[in-house]
C-alpha cells in the first residue's frame, strides 16, 4: 500500500510510552513481530487515517495489484455472532444460495461471543504473523478491538472495485463511517441500537427517558451492561451529554452517577447479552438492551410484553462489521461473500430473521415484494418466524427513518490508548468493584 497519510509513523509509537521504561531499543524485527512497536498510543476510529507506515504487517497487501493476483479457492471460513443469520431447519438459506450460484462453500461458525474474547483468540496468531483460520470476521465498532486490528495493520484493505453490490446498495449509515473512512477495511454486517428495554406488564408509565434506569421504584430489578463502553455511554446520555463529544470530566460525572445508582441498590447486576434471559424470567423488569434482542424475543408470544423504548435522550448506535484478517487463506472468496450480502434479495432473507438495523435500505422493498430467489426462501422461513414479512419491512427498528438515524448517537471515538484506559479505569470499578 503506497499511501502514506502524513505523520503516521510518529503516531504509532508514543514517546510517552517510553517514559518510565528502561532504555530499550526495538529492533525492526522485534517491532514487526510484536506489532509495530508495542504502541500504547493508537489512533483509533476517529479517522486519523489508519495509515500504513513502513513496517506495518499489511504493507503491500490489499492493493489493487495484490487483489488482482488473488484467485477464488471456492471456500470461505466465516466467523460471526450467534443468531445473526437466517436459519431454517439447521441450514442457512442465504448461504446455501450463495454456494449454489458461486460454488463457494461457506464454513459458517458462530464463534464470536464478544469482541474481547474473540480478539483474545485471534490475536496470538496475528501477532505471530500466522493465519487466524478465518477469512471473514465480524467485530463491533464500540469496543476497542476493531480499532486495534486496524491500527496494528492486521486487516486486509478491501478493493471496492470488486464490491458492486456494496457500492450500489449500501445505506448511508454504513457507507463511509467515521470509524473507517471510505470503508477501507470494513463492510457492515448489521447495525443496532443500545437502548432501554422493559416489561410493559410490570412497568406502568415507563416514560421516555433513560432515567427509568435510575428510578428507585425499580430498585433491584434494573439490568445494566457489563461492557464499560456501554455503561459509560448511557451514564453520559443520562446527564444529557453526547457521548461522541464528551470530555474526561464528563466521564467522571457519569461515573459518579453510575456509582450512585449502584450504591442505591438499583442495579440487580451488570449483564452481558444474557440480560435478555433475565428480562424474560422476571429477574429484572427494565434494562439496557439491544434493539434486535427485543424484536426476537417478541416473536415468542410469551414475551410479547417486552418493549423497546426510544428515549428522548437518544439511542446509541453501533455497527457490527465484516473484516478480512491478515493472512486469510481465501480473501477473494471472502470479499465475494461479503459483497453478496449487500444484494437486497439476500438482505431481505437475512433481515427477516435478524431484526437489527439493515445496511441495505432496498431490502425493505424486497421483503414486501420479493423479486427473485428470496421469494421462496421468505415463504419457507415464515412458519419459523411466525410473522409476515411486512412486519419486518415496516419496522422502524429495522429500517429506521433518516431522521431517526441522524438522531442516533455514536460512541466516543477514542484517540489513543490513554483515553481507553482512562475510560475503563472510571467505569470498570463500578462493574466489578464491590
Amino acid at each position: 500500500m503506497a499511501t502514506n497519510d502524513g505523520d503516521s509513523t510518529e503516531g504509532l509509537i508514543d514517546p510517552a510510552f517510553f517514559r518510565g521504561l528502561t532504555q530499550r531499543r526495538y529492533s525492526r524485527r522485534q517491532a514487526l513481530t510484536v506489532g509495530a512497536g508495542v504502541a500504547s498510543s493508537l489512533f483509533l476510529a476517529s479517522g486519523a487515517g489508519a495509515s500504513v507506515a513502513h513496517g506495518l504487517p499489511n504493507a503491500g497487501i490489499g492493493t489493487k495489484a495484490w487483489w488482482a493476483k488473488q484467485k477464488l479457492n471456492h471456500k470461505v471460513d466465516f466467523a460471526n455472532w450467534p443468531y445473526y443469520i437466517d436459519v431454517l431447519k439447521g441450514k442457512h438459506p442465504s448461504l446455501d444460495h450463495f454456494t449454489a450460484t458461486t460454488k463457494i462453500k461457506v464454513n459458517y461458525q458462530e464463534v464470536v461471543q464478544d469482541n474481547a474474547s474473540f480478539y483474545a483468540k485471534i490475536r496470538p496468531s496475528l501477532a505471530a504473523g500466522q493465519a487466524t483460520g478465518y477469512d471473514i470476521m465480524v467485530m463491533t465498532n464500540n469496543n476497542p478491538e476493531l480499532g486495534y486490528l486496524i491500527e496494528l495493520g492486521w486487516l486486509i484493505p478491501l478493493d471496492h472495485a470488486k464490491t458492486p453490490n456494496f457500492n450500489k446498495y449500501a445505506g448511508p449509515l454504513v457507507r463511509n463511517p467515521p470509524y473507517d473512512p471510505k470503508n477501507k477495511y470494513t463492510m457492515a454486517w448489521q447495525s443496532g441500537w443500545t437502548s432501554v428495554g422493559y416489561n410493559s406488564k410490570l412497568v406502568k408509565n415507563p416514560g421516555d427517558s433513560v432515567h427509568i434506569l435510575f428510578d428507585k421504584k425499580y430498585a433491584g430489578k434494573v439490568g445494566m451492561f457489563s461492557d464499560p463502553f456501554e455503561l459509560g455511554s448511557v451514564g453520559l446520555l443520562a446527564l444529557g451529554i453526547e457521548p461522541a463529544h464528551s470530555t474526561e470530566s464528563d466521564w467522571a460525572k457519569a461515573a459518579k452517577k453510575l456509582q450512585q445508582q449502584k450504591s442505591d441498590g438499583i442495579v440487580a447486576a451488570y449483564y452481558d447479552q444474557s440480560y435478555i434471559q433475565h428480562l424474560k424470567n422476571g429477574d429484572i423488569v427494565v434494562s439496557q438492551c439491544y434493539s434486535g434482542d427485543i424484536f426476537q424475543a417478541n416473536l415468542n408470544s410469551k414475551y410479547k410484553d417486552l418493549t423497546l423504548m426510544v428515549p428522548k435522550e437518544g439511542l446509541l448506535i453501533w455497527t457490527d462489521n465484516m473484516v478480512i484478517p491478515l493472512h486469510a487463506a481465501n480473501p477473494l472468496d471472502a470479499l465475494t461473500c461479503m459483497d453478496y450480502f449487500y444484494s437486497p434479495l439476500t438482505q431481505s432473507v437475512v433481515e427477516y430473521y435478524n431484526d437489527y438495523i439493515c445496511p441495505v435500505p432496498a431490502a425493505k422493498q424486497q421483503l414486501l415484494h420479493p423479486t427473485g430467489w428470496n421469494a421462496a426462501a421468505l415463504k419457507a422461513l415464515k412458519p419459523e418466524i411466525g410473522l409476515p414479512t411486512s412486519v419486518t419491512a415496516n419496522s422502524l427498528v429495522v429500517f429506521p427513518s433518516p431522521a431517526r438515524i441522524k438522531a442516533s448517537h455514536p460512541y466516543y471515538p477514542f484517540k489513543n490508548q490513554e483515553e481507553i484506559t482512562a475510560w475503563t479505569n472510571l467505569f470498570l470499578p463500578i462493574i466489578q468493584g464491590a
Partner: protein
Amino acid sequence: MSLDTAPDVKASRERPLGRKRKVGRFALPTYSWLVIAYLVFPIAVMIAYSFNRVIGGLQLVSFSWNGFTTLWYQQWSNVPGLTAAFWLSIRLALVSTVVATVLGTLLAIALVRYRSQKFRGKIAVEQVLFLNIAAPEIVMGASLLGLFVTLNIGRGFVTLVLAHVMFSIAYVTVTVRARLAGFDRSLEEAAYDLGANPLTTFRLVTLPLIMPGVLAGALMAFALSIDDFVTSNFVSGSSDPFPVWVYGATRVGIPPQVFVFGTFIFMVGIGFAFLSIVLARKKS
C-alpha cells in the same frame, strides 16, 4: 464389670436392634440418599427440560413447560459448534486421563516406597504436589496463558492436553498414594521370593492390588478434565471444550441440545455405576 453389663460390647459386633439403634440405623442411609437426591436435583431438571418444546423465536431452552418432545434428541447434532466441542472434550479427557494416571501412579509409587535418603528431593516433590493442589485454578490458567504467550505457542488441543494433565497428576498421585500407603509389602516380597523381577512383580502383584486406587485416580482425572472450565477458558484458543462453549453460549440462551448432551453424559456415568455393581457382585 461383668461382660453382660458392659455397654455396647456386643452391640458393636452384633448390633442388637434396640429402639434407638433402629432409628439410628436408618438415619445415615436416609440422610445419604437425601444428599444424593439434592446433588441429582438439577440434573433431573436438566433431563426433564431436554424434552421441553420451544415455541416461537430462537431455538433456546425455555424454562416454562411447553409440552413434551423428543425433537432435540433427533436433532442432537444440529448445533455444529456444540457437537464439535463435545467430541473435543471427550478426546481431551481420554488422552489427559491416560497420561495423568500413568504419570501420577508412577510418582505415587516413588513417593510411598522410598524414604528421603534414597529419594533426594522427595520433600520438594511433595511440596510441589501440595502447591499444585492448593493453587487456585485461575492462577494456573492465567500462568499457563502467560507461558504460552511468552513462548509463542499456539493454543489448541495440545495446549489443552498439557494443561489438563498438569492439574490432574497431583490428584491421581494423592489418590493412588492414599491407597498404596496401606499396601501390604509382604505380598511383593513373596513374589520376589518366588523369583519374579520387579517388572513382573509390578504387573502381576502390585498393579492388580492397587488397581482400585488407580481407577479411582483415573476417574478423578477424567471428571476433572471433562468438567474443567477455568483453565480451559484461558488456554483453549479457538478449539473450545464443551464447558467453555456452553459458558460462551449462555448469553442469549442455551440451545436444548446442550441438555441433550448433558443427559447423555449423565447416562454414561450411571452406566459406570451399574457396571461397578455388577463387577463387585461378580468378584464375590
